């Protein structure tokens, strides 16, 4: 559905997009994950022809994307990072206006607007002006304005920024429903939990480049980390820590605030070996947690820095 090849975008000496290539298929929820300034929004703006670029190719629905590709634009819905609505209009009027840019038939539009209002659950706020809405409701209105015309492709650029957890969950559920109804979704975020929860395929961006892409499983398979074990221990000396590090399958051991944080490889048996070691050396321990690797771990291992750095 979206084909981006070797996209290069420069702001003076700064390379915002460094030969970025993406292939987004019909029906998927594609996540663009990366820290702030990684080039996510620039990529989206180039894809939508809001920004010119220095080199590369962009195709949407099999056609070259240009500022006057109005037929393609008719089937795209966009939810911007910032809330883009008229303060002067009510919730209903706002959705009706933006839907009206795509749908001219009045009765058809009325039906779509009502559906969009139901979809984002703003039925009780139809006559409210945006200034009277909370941050979460405002975000939902922003989404309704972008999707009311039932586009085939919906691009959401960090739609949950500064939203409370309850509203965030509602937004994510809504996006999943849109996808089930047949829309292809492109979702950008720097929240890895959201991308993990929502996206079927993910591209991780850093410094304008795709550093990894694939399904969650494929991404996690790219790294050596298999499991992160946290053990509440009473005390341990430096020599014992060193011995732990030398156990088979253990990648690293850290002693942080009376907790042992052990990263192990993908081979099974690391946890048993660690517990045996603690018993043998009579090191008292309490609760034990085990976590599978996250996208943050993928990002950390590939770039050497945290996603939210």
């Amino acid at each position, binding site marked *: 559905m979206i084909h981006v090849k070797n996209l290069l975008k420069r702001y003076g000496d700064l390379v915002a997009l460094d030969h970025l290539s993406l292939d987004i298929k019909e029906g998927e929820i594609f996540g663009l994950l990366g820290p702030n300034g990684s080039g996510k929004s620039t990529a989206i703006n180039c894809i939508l022809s809001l920004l010119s670029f220095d080199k590369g190719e962009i195709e949407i629905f099999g056609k070259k994307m240009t*500022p006057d590709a109005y037929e393609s634009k008719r089937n795209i819905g966009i939810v911007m990072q910032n809330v*883009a*609505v*008229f*303060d002067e209009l009510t919730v209903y009027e706002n959705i009706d206006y933006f839907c009206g840019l795509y749908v001219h038939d009045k009765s058809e539009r009325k039906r779509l607007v009502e559906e969009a209002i139901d979809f984002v659950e703003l039925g009780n706020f139809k006559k409210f002006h945006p200034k009277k809405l909370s941050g979460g409701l405002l975000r939902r209105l922003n989404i309704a*304005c972008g999707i009311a015309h039932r586009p085939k492709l919906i691009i959401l650029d960090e739609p949950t920024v500064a939203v409370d957890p309850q509203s965030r969950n509602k937004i994510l559920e809504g996006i999943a429903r849109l996808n089930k109804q047949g829309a292809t979704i492109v979702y950008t975020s720097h929240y890895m939990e959201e991308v993990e929860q929502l996206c079927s395929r993910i591209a991780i961006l850093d410094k304008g480049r795709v550093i990894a892409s694939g399904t969650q499983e494929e991404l996690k398979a790219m790294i050596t980390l298999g499991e992160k074990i946290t053990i509440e221990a009473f005390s341990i000396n430096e020599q014992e820590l060193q011995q732990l590090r030398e156990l088979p399958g253990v990648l690293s051991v850290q002693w942080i605030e009376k907790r042992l944080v052990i990263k192990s490889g993908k081979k099974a048996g690391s946890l048993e070996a660690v517990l045996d070691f603690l018993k043998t050396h009579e090191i008292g321990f309490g609760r034990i947690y085990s976590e599978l690797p996250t996208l943050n771990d993928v990002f950390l291992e590939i770039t050497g820095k945290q996603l939210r750095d």
Partner: protein
Amino acid sequence: MPVFKVCLKIFRKNWLSVSIYIVIFLAIALLISATSVSERPTTFSQKKARVAFIAEEQTPLVKGFRKELSRSTTIVALPDQSEKLQDALYFRQVTYILRIPKGFTESVLSGGKMQLEKTVVPNSIENTYVDLNVDQYWNLARLYAAHDPGISQNGLASRLRANLSGTTPVVMKTENAAKTSDSFSMFYFNFLAYTLSAVLIMGISTAMMVFRRRDLRMRHYCSPLKQANVTMQLLAANLLFAGASWAVLVGFCFLLDPQSIVTMNMLYFLINSLLFTGCIASLSYLISTVLKSLNAVSAVCNLITLGTCFISGVFVPQEFLNSTVLKIASFTPTYWYVQANTRIAKLTHFSWDHLAPSLYSMLIMLAFTGAFIAIALVIGRRQQATN
């Protein structure tokens, strides 16, 4: 036409802030209407001086002169007492005391130098008519007597009566000028500059700034609506708003001064104000491209409207303003609008020669309009490229 409709909705939303200017304007217009002189002379009638006629002799010529004088003056009967005559003059019971001394008739007929005695209120225009009448009657009497030495005084008096009985028809050639020069409609159209500027800047700049918000613009760019289409719809909405504001404000002038509609001057007042409306509409558009915050619109609106109106002669006539102030004002369209208005108000003939100065002012306003649009387009393009 979704953009057009929403733009009109935004105008309606700003109705309150705009209507304040209209209410103030109408209040002042009503005040001017109530205090301005509505009765303007349309026919000529000679003003009659009030004259105290004291004759120390009662010859047929003097009697004839009194009769002749009474046609063009009001003769007030007063006793021949110095104090009473002075009081009458002081209290303006009379403006002219004419005394005919004893032997005056004989002196005139014999070519003597005896003169009439007069006491007058200074700087009184109607007294000039009395002087003219006196000179005319007695000089004519002297002329007849010189050419017909045997003529009796009665014969002379009847000849003079016949000679002076003619009247001069007076036609008012400046009827239209009298209607609009310094009239209510002139003041109204001058003051219209303030209200029209305030209403248009508040309305158009605010609406355009809303549409110029970056996020909303991006939504529009992403939609299948062509950018030219969006611009045309916005332009249509702004023109409708400007036209409606103009029509409403001009309509009030017709309500308050219905007589002004029939004058030819009104046609040019309307053309001038319509051009001014276009000019201020383009200025409002320019302001919307420069300003960053909606909160600043009101402040900028007051600054521009009040500032330009004060120095351009909207509140104080241009003839009372300092030449340096007027030179500065000439860099604003309001100055040329007021100048054209004042010139139009004084027009009595509408040939090219008479209209040319007013049309010149209107042309300069058109040039301002073009300049504002050009600057706004350049700034708009730059901003588009930057964003």
